[in-house]
């Protein structure tokens, strides 16, 4: 089975103090550490585990600049058979749609029974790549997949709905699955494991190699544009709700309701 895993190289923003850059259209990234998108870590692990079970080949691919080579090498260390870096200066400024178009073009040109990726990336929090790639390839897709079973060319998976409810679905292959975190336990990658794959080549494919037009990628090929970025106002610690327990509780209930803290 040929499995292609779409990886993303993202800045680790979860713990960092962020500031918006001068143009006000992005954050300052010079101080940030970049790493494999956490969700994608589960995708590559699932791909390797599936390969270990049913055999086949795992290909990791990322639309990312040079710096991301380490991430792709880590994919090889995790058990991927080959890795490709898709980058061209023209790709700069691509939105989710343009990235999906690049990935779809790459996938279309090679055998693929299953395409895996993480449901969400921590940088743009879009959750759109998997679904878009599936539509572009005209194959079925699903997101938030928490369990994957493959037998006789048929794919069965569970996906998370809200509140402990799951949906069980079947799909024909090929398909695109965007996985949820926690569907497996990603393996550890030691320094030695990376050393072992140090000699493997990670080809970089550029615009022409992929047969793409410049107008289809980058900001020209994007459908949305970032106009402004700002940090939400940050309070100095908690606003303490005063009053007797009942009063405070009542005030808190209002706040929760207002902020979406009361679900179904």
């Amino acid at each position, binding site marked *: 089975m040929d499995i292609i895993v779409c990886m993303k190289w993202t800045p680790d923003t979860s713990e960092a103090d962020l500031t918006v850059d001068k143009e006000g259209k992005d954050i300052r990234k010079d101080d940030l550490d970049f790493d494999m998108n956490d969700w994608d870590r589960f995708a590559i692990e699932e791909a390797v585990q599936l390969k270990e079970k049913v055999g086949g080949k795992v290909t990791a691919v990322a639309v990312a600049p040079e710096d991301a080579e380490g991430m792709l090498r880590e994919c090889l260390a995790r058990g991927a058979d080959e890795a490709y870096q898709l980058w061209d200066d023209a790709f700069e400024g691509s939105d989710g749609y343009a990235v999906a178009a690049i990935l779809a073009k790459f996938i279309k040109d090679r055998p693929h029974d299953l395409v895996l990726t993480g449901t969400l990336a921590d940088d743009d929090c879009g959750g*759109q790549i998997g679904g878009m790639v599936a539509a572009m390839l005209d194959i079925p897709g699903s997101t938030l997949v928490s369990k994957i079973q493959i037998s006789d060319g048929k794919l069965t998976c569970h996906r998370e709905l809200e509140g402990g409810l799951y*949906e069980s679905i079947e799909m024909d292959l090929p398909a695109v699955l965007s996985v949820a975190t926690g569907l497996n336990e990603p393996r550890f990658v030691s320094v030695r494991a990376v050393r072992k794959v140090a000699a493997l080549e990670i080809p970089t494919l550029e615009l022409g190699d992929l047969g793409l037009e410049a107008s289809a990628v980058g900001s020209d090929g994007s459908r949305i544009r970032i106009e402004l970025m700002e940090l939400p106002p940050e309070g100095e610690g908690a606003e303490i709700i005063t009053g007797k327990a009942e009063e405070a509780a009542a005030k808190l209930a209002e706040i929760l309701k207002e902020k*979406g803290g009361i679900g179904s």
Partner: protein
Amino acid sequence: MKEIFVLAEHRKQQLRDTTWEALAAGRKLAEDLGAELTCLLLGSNVDAMADALAKEAPRVLVVEDPRLEPFHPDACMQTLKAILADRGPFMLVMGNSNALLDLAPGLSVTLDAALATDCFKFEVRDGKPLAWRQMYSYKVNTLVSFKDAERIVATLRGGAFAFTPSGAAVATVEKVASPLGGTTFRRRFVGYVEAEKGDVDVASADIIVSVGRGIGDEPDMEMFESLAEAMGGVLACSRPIVDKNLLPKYHQVGTSGVEVKPKVYLALGISGAFQHVGGIKGSPLLVAVNKDPRAPIFRVAQYGIVADLNQVVPALTDKIKQLKG
């Protein structure tokens, strides 16, 4: 924008809250853009839901087909593609729910539309809509434009758009024949799988009520469970609670437990050790209730109450039930 479409989301013959929130967002957008508002309801045997929507939306468009029930993203996509084929310019809004996450991105490609997911606010400039969403671990607010797109799909952050029922509209419910014909799909719904009660998935919960050491040695766990239930969330905890066998391990939030990315995190009796707080990712609305005013959790929470949990929690549960009606 000529038209605003709102896609109704339903499960097991019940409209979901996302529908009303999308309707609220749609109303505002229609008003600001001077566009017509239409609610789209796709399913099978949806009369009751159509009636409910007709009280709130100026137009309701219904497509019925057994293949649209239960929710099937590919069937929805085909249907929407057919009924929206000649429309435009338009903007289609829907909830950013887990179910619709299987629809919106593919749909945007199918409709050749621009997509913005998880929007929490819209604004209009020069007659064009712009969307506010969050990036970078949900820590940065970002305003995005749709360039010159004539078709836009946007999904909405849960809880961001408050719906106020007007009940005034009496819309006509327009039924459109299903365009699906003999289409078969490469994806098949098998069934719902209810996680066992013990299987509560804290990691993917949007609303978390989390309890810590401060709940005491012999806590009334039912009290906390009913609060979580009232809030529509799940109960989680810090390590001492697991140690005392009050909750199983998979409820434990923390760097050593489960990492969570909720929208709302209510910390009850949690001191706020880094091992715990480190497991809370994203930027949820963090509310802390603790007896100790110096508890570090108050430093990271947006709201806090310094009080005895035994008094606050029942009062809060009652009040929330009241607000939900």
